[in-house]
């Protein structure tokens, strides 16, 4: 009540971020990214089989933050909420990283990478060779192959979705994922920037109706992307919980990243009057909600597969319950759910920026472990070299540096392009003075 901030207390034109102020972190990320790209080039030619998995892991890990940022602006606009106006620009910038990220996705389009990652593509390509001999199309050729090798029969039944040749092929969807996410991110930030020119409420209204419509396409994009890139690693596996499981992790981790970015900006002297402890509390509550939601979904997926005990389904968990992976699985239960749950339970902890930021660092680490645990255990068995590929973790670190380092560098530098918050949003003052 006493610390009410009015429009005139805030600088005209918003706050502009000067990259020189945060030079240490930005340069560090840039340096790590450059070294990572050099290392990646080396491994790409030296050991493409194992490095393909490293790249997929690093790319997908970074992708989850972009997708999460996209979700938070969509939800914020669709639910017509005002509290998040003060931090919305961070999400907008995060979501717009989809464009540079698309460059890092290009290696996944190379057949020489796909051949190590996606066994089903090898079968499809081989079947395509036999089209014309006895079969009129790829599906029929696969059908013939399945007579000799019954394991392939599942590829015939999954042909409608898992294929390289129809209008709804893997490649079409690949393009659609980036186009849809780019369209959402670009439109919502575009409206937000137009509002900075004229201060008109109609942009807020337009964002709301846009978000309500595009949430559906967003949900389909996340689900299909998670299927195409990760479930495709083992073509016999399937889980109806997978899309929402990945989504829960995306929203969780990107909220953690948002809190860290805001803390970093505040430590450099920005957003002092705009973001208060109340915002930390609100973001902390969402973080807590998604901690529980992720655990709920992760357990449901495990539970259904464990109880039903169907061979094709249990393979996923059997691989992750073998040797060292078993301890990673148990660590995820404790570190991804129990620890954040207990840490975020109390209100005072969520209101202290230092405490919740420390929790967020842990959250980013656990999200990294989660994605690693989802991608990498497929590598050894798929390449036929046992449970673990010795020494391949170095390649994982190199790929992570390349993608996450470079994207982090671009993201933080990109913050300088526009004001750090939508300074003419009609509900900014309501957000700045929020109490909960």
């Amino acid at each position, binding site marked *: *009540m006493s610390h009410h901030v009015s429009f005139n207390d805030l600088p005209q034109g918003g706050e502009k971020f000067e990259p020189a102020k945060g030079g240490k972190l930005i340069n560090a990320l840039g340096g790590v990214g450059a070294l990572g790209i050099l290392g990646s080039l080396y491994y790409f030619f030296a050991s493409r089989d194992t490095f393909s998995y490293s790249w997929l892991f690093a790319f997908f890990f970074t992708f989850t933050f972009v997708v999460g940022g996209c979700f938070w602006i969509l939800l914020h606009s669709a639910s017509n909420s005002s509290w998040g106006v003060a931090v919305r620009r961070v999400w907008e910038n995060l979501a717009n990283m989809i464009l540079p990220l698309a460059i890092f996705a290009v290696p996944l389009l190379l057949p020489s990478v796909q051949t190590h990652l996606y066994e089903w593509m090898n079968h499809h390509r081989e079947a395509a060779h036999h089209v014309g001999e006895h079969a009129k199309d790829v599906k029929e050729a696969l059908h013939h192959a399945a007579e000799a090798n019954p394991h392939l029969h599942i590829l015939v039944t999954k042909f409608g979705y898992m294929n390289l040749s129809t209008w709804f092929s893997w490649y079409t969807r690949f393009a659609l994922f980036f186009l849809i996410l780019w369209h959402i991110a670009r439109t919502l930030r575009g409206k937000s920037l137009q509002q900075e020119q004229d201060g008109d409420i109609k942009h807020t209204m337009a964002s709301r109706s846009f978000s309500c419509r595009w949430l559906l396409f967003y949900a389909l994009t996340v689900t299909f992307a998670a299927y195409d890139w990760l479930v495709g690693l083992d073509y016999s596996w399937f889980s109806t919980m997978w899309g929402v499981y990945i989504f829960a992790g995306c929203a969780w981790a990107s909220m953690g990243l948002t809190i860290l970015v805001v803390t970093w900006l505040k430590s450099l002297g920005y957003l002092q009057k705009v973001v208060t402890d109340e915002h930390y509390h609100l973001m902390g509550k969402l973080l807590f909600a998604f901690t529980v939601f992720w655990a709920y979904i992760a*357990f449901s997926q*495990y*539970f259904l597969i464990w*109880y039903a*005990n169907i061979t094709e389904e249990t393979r996923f968990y059997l691989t992750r319950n073998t040797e060292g992976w078993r301890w990673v699985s148990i660590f995820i239960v404790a570190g991804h759910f129990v620890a954040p749950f207990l840490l975020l339970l109390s209100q005072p902890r969520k209101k202290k920026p230092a405490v919740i930021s420390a929790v967020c660092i842990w959250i980013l680490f656990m999200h990294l472990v989660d994605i690693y645990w989802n991608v990498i255990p497929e590598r050894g068995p798929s390449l036929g070299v046992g449970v673990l590929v010795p020494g391949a973790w170095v390649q994982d670190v190199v790929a992570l540096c390349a993608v996450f380092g470079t994207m982090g560098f671009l993201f933080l530098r990109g913050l300088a392009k526009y004001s750090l918050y939508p300074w003419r949003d009609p509900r900014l003052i309501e957000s700045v003075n929020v*109490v909960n």
Partner: protein
Amino acid sequence: MSTTLKRVHGYLAEFDSVQDLYHAAEQVRDAGYNRWDVHSPFPIHGMDAAMGNPRSKLPYLVFCGGITGTTVAFILQTVTQTNFWGSLGLTFVENIVETYPTIVQAKPTDIWTLPAFFPVMFELTILFSAFTTLFGLLAIIGLPRWNHPLFASKRFAKFSDDGFFVCIEARDPKFSQEGTKALLEKAGGRNIELVEDEI
């Protein structure tokens, strides 16, 4: 002819608006009263702080209720469906499992069947927490009760329509017939009346 014994319940003062009520609450808080309350037709944001109320004890009760639910569900299921307690040395418990084994889907009967018990553990956690929230709340605020002394005041009926009231109770150690009335007048209270409770 009848005689009724009466006991002073406290002073009731009416206020015109939410703002007046809010500032009156701040003044009563700063005067150091403990046994008092405000009454309004709807919840008022920030009133907790204006009244100086401490944080509710209810979350601790609910936490204990939730933990109890988890434990009850765990014990109920493991006693009847696993040899977990038997393996800890409680062989008499194991007789239950041997008498009526419930082996489902060829799952093991040791503690590693735990995931199968999670849904019930989850549900009972929620159920016990919800019960503790409801009944704990009722216990803390002293409901249900037959009557309230404030109902003796005709004017007080407005509290559920358009009236904003502060009532300082006589059992407050700082209560005094003149001092309390003066405080309420200073705070802008109107129609100040001494509410009496029939005993």
